[in-house]
């Protein structure tokens, strides 16, 4: 620990309790945050991490307990009060206006009366100082997830906070991007700031944090030094039991390709999107094929073309179970036995303000017997929610709540479960465990493996190399809209993947670059 004995905590949370009806989201939680310290907050979905940080950031009021800032009791009436004290936060879901530029977004999030030009200059300065490059004039919708996170971080740093709260910051980053973030965090710690860091990635927590508080069921289980713990002892404290390892079912793998992509080239819908350049791929029944790559290299475009949200130029660009599907709608593709899980849970995978039963209908109306002669079979949609809930352990307050009220992990289990219960022959899933805790991630990965074990072709697009290493049989890398030739998992070392992800000129990456130049130039 870097803390000097006798140091006063910057922020003390004492006996924080938050009650929602009968649910205790936080149950007398104590937390001390010191300057020059990275403090990790660990816990499963629904353990109360988000509630606690929202209280510290003034977004919600505790039912009982108090906050002390530098030894004095404070009541935070809202985020602006917290910011005025020197507390900054980066949320897991970004609050950015897509149609505005980086600078405009930053200006909207700042409280001061600084002029726009001065603010822009300071934005450029801060982003340069901390090695977080940003073009202030670029519109947000053109940026990758990693770049969007940078805006949030820079916006927070411009307020010169004494305490920084980051909610699952690395969930959206590649290993290289995460490494860069850690450098920034260590530098901020060196400047004497306190950092509260929420994560599920235990290796990461062990690597960068000086102390950790573990929550379970709304209660504080322990405060410890994560460096003196093992990943499994941390996991045990979080879950209260051992997490089952994902079991690979052996001897599956057939030779029948169920999802085939043939020389798929497509210009992006938005002029600044990524061209798909001659993407070809075969996913066989019984195998999981992982597509790695830094976000914004054409994965979104590929997903949209596979799902049918965009149609491709030729019908045989996409073949699902032998049917040329390139020009079919998403509904027709679902009827061919395909299922899709997009990256964004809220707003894409689900309609946030609609009930789970309606969100079951969202993809189920195509081929799940939930609609008869245009009429919705309500009991069938509810039954599907119940079935998903039971099999995938979706935790929720009521039988049929709105999607937005579920925690990220539980909603993701619902979305993945919703598709898997349809027993698809082909499943395309993007970032299956994006911002999901270890226990939920294990459930989801196990379900994907079992689905492929039953003969389905599973295509996983993921930025999480650990995930790909854990579940994929073969791996390909996407870079600048080009897909590398898939290799067996055993051959896919981190170094090799890292080079391909960076578009380096090693091995197959050479061919990739040449091919993309040939198409593009």
């Amino acid at each position, binding site marked *: 620990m870097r803390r000097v004995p006798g140091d006063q905590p910057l922020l003390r949370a004492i006996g924080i309790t938050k009650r929602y009806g009968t649910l205790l989201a936080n149950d007398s939680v104590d937390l001390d945050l010191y300057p020059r310290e990275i403090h990790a907050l660990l816990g499963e979905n629904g353990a109360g991490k988000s509630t606690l940080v929202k209280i510290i950031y003034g977004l919600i009021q505790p039912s009982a307990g108090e906050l002390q800032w530098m030894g004095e009791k*404070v009541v935070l009436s809202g985020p*602006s009060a917290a910011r005025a004290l020197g507390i900054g936060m980066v949320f897991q879901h970004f609050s950015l206006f897509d149609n505005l530029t980086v600078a405009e977004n930053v200006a909207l999030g700042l409280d001061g009366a600084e002029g726009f030009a001065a603010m822009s200059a300071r934005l450029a300065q801060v982003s340069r100082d901390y090695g977080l490059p940003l073009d202030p004039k670029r519109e947000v919708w053109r940026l990758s997830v990693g770049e969007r996170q940078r805006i949030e971080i820079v916006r927070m740093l411009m307020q010169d906070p004494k305490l920084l709260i980051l909610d699952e910051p690395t969930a959206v980053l590649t290993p290289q991007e995460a490494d860069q973030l850690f450098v920034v965090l260590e530098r901020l710690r060196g400047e004497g700031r306190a950092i509260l860091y929420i994560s599920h990635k235990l290796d990461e927590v062990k690597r960068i944090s000086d102390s950790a508080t573990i929550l379970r069921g709304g209660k504080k289980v322990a405060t410890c030094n994560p460096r003196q713990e093992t990943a499994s002892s941390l996991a045990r404290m979080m879950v209260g039991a051992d997490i089952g390892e994902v079991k690979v079912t052996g001897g599956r793998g057939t030779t029948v390709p169920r999802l085939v992509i043939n020389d798929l080239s497509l210009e992006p819908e938005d002029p600044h999107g990524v061209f798909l350049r001659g993407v070809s791929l075969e996913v066989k029944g019984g195998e999981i094929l992982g597509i790695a790559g830094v976000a914004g290299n054409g994965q979104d475009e590929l997903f949209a073309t596979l799902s049918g949200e965009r149609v491709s130029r030729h019908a045989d660009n996409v073949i699902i179970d032998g049917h040329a599907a390139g020009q079919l709608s*998403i509904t027709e593709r679902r009827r061919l036995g395909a299922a899709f899980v997009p990256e964004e849970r809220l707003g894409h995978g689900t309609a946030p303000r609609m009930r789970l039963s309606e969100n079951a*209908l969202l993809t189920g*109306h*195509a081929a799940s017997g939930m*609609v008869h002669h245009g009429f919705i079979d309500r009991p069938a949609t509810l039954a599907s929610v119940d079935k998903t809930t039971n099999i995938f352990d979706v935790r929720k307050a009521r039988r049929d709540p709105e999607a937005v009220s579920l925690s990220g992990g539980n909603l993701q289990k619902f979305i993945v479960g919703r598709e898997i219960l349809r027993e698809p022959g082909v499943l395309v899933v993007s970032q299956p465990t994006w911002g999901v805790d270890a226990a939920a991630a294990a459930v989801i990965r196990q379900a994907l493996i079992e689905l492929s074990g039953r003969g389905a072709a599973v295509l996983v697009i993921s930025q999480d190399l650990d995930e790909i290493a854990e579940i994929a049989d073969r791996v390909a890398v996407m870079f600048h809209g080009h897909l590398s030739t898939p290799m067996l998992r055993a051959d896919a070392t981190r170094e090799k993947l890292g080079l391909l992800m960076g578009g380096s000129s090693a091995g197959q990456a050479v061919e990739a670059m040449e091919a993309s130049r040939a198409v593009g130039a």
Partner: protein
Amino acid sequence: MQLVLERRQERSALVAIVSPLIAIALTLVTMAILFALLGKNPVTALIVYFIEPLTDAYTLQEIAVKATPLVMIGVGLSLCYLANVWNIGAEGQFTIGAVAGSWLAVHTNGTGAGYWVLPAMLIMGAAAGALYAMIPAICKVRFGASEILTSLMLVYVADLFMDYLVRGPWRDPKGMNFPTTAEFDPVATVPTLIDGSRLHAGAILALIVVMLATVMLGRTIKGFEIRVVGAAPRAARFAGFNSSQLVIFTFAVSGALAGLAGIIEVAGPVGHLQPGISPGYGFTAIIVAFLGRLNPVGILIAGLFLALTFIGGEGAQISLKVPLDLTKVFQGILLFYVLACDSLIVHRIRLIAAQPKAAPGTA
């Protein structure tokens, strides 16, 4: 003490029902202040406006007569608004429906045509309203033109077109130069429900529309599609719903209902085509749709309530000598409060006891 607007975890079902009532209460308070400023006794004025029309069989029927077009149009508009499609031009679709149906009535006038005339008029009115609504719909889908502007501007086109017809080619030769067509034949007139009353069969049709819309929105995949496209466009695309087709569909349905309301109004209570057949039904129906929470049954209630303001306004004009425009003021204030109170469904107001010490002057 401090007032804070806080986001709710889930939308509140209770507030969804109570919010229009709060809006009405706030409107009444505001109106009372207005009456006081005009030098009228607010209590008497409100009684003339809102209670007296309910105490008389004739005015009760008149409320139903006025509510009929409001409910029909309001239901159609609610489908648009649920799907995030902003049809503001129901007034024009109403007028064109009235004109199209009247064409048949004018041309069969005095020819002794049979009972097919009225049904044919209704069909023509609905079809013309739908077709007229296709102009903004197609402009939106093909060229990305804002349907708010195009549909609104087409209201004036429709009005002037009708004006031309009743002053020119369709003018009643025996009408002493008044801008009106001849009285429609009985076969071209919507039958009344009670002898000697103006309450007509159109009211029944409005109830049927409410029932059909309730079933469609709550029970069918089309209704689900409308709600998803409005609530989460990207999720709707993922669900395989085509938002362009839905723009066409909702415009067609709302145009047809407005056109139907138009021809029913002309062939029913009015009895001939003339300027001023609508006291702004197409615009008031926008308020009806929102006051009714974009829910067909809610719209039925809201339609009756706004019809009451029309009747009460007429009464107030006579007995209190206040201008009829006060009704429009009332309706405008009401819409304002309805939209304001709607934010309480997703947000809650909280009183926070003390200011934080270290953060003075923050909002």
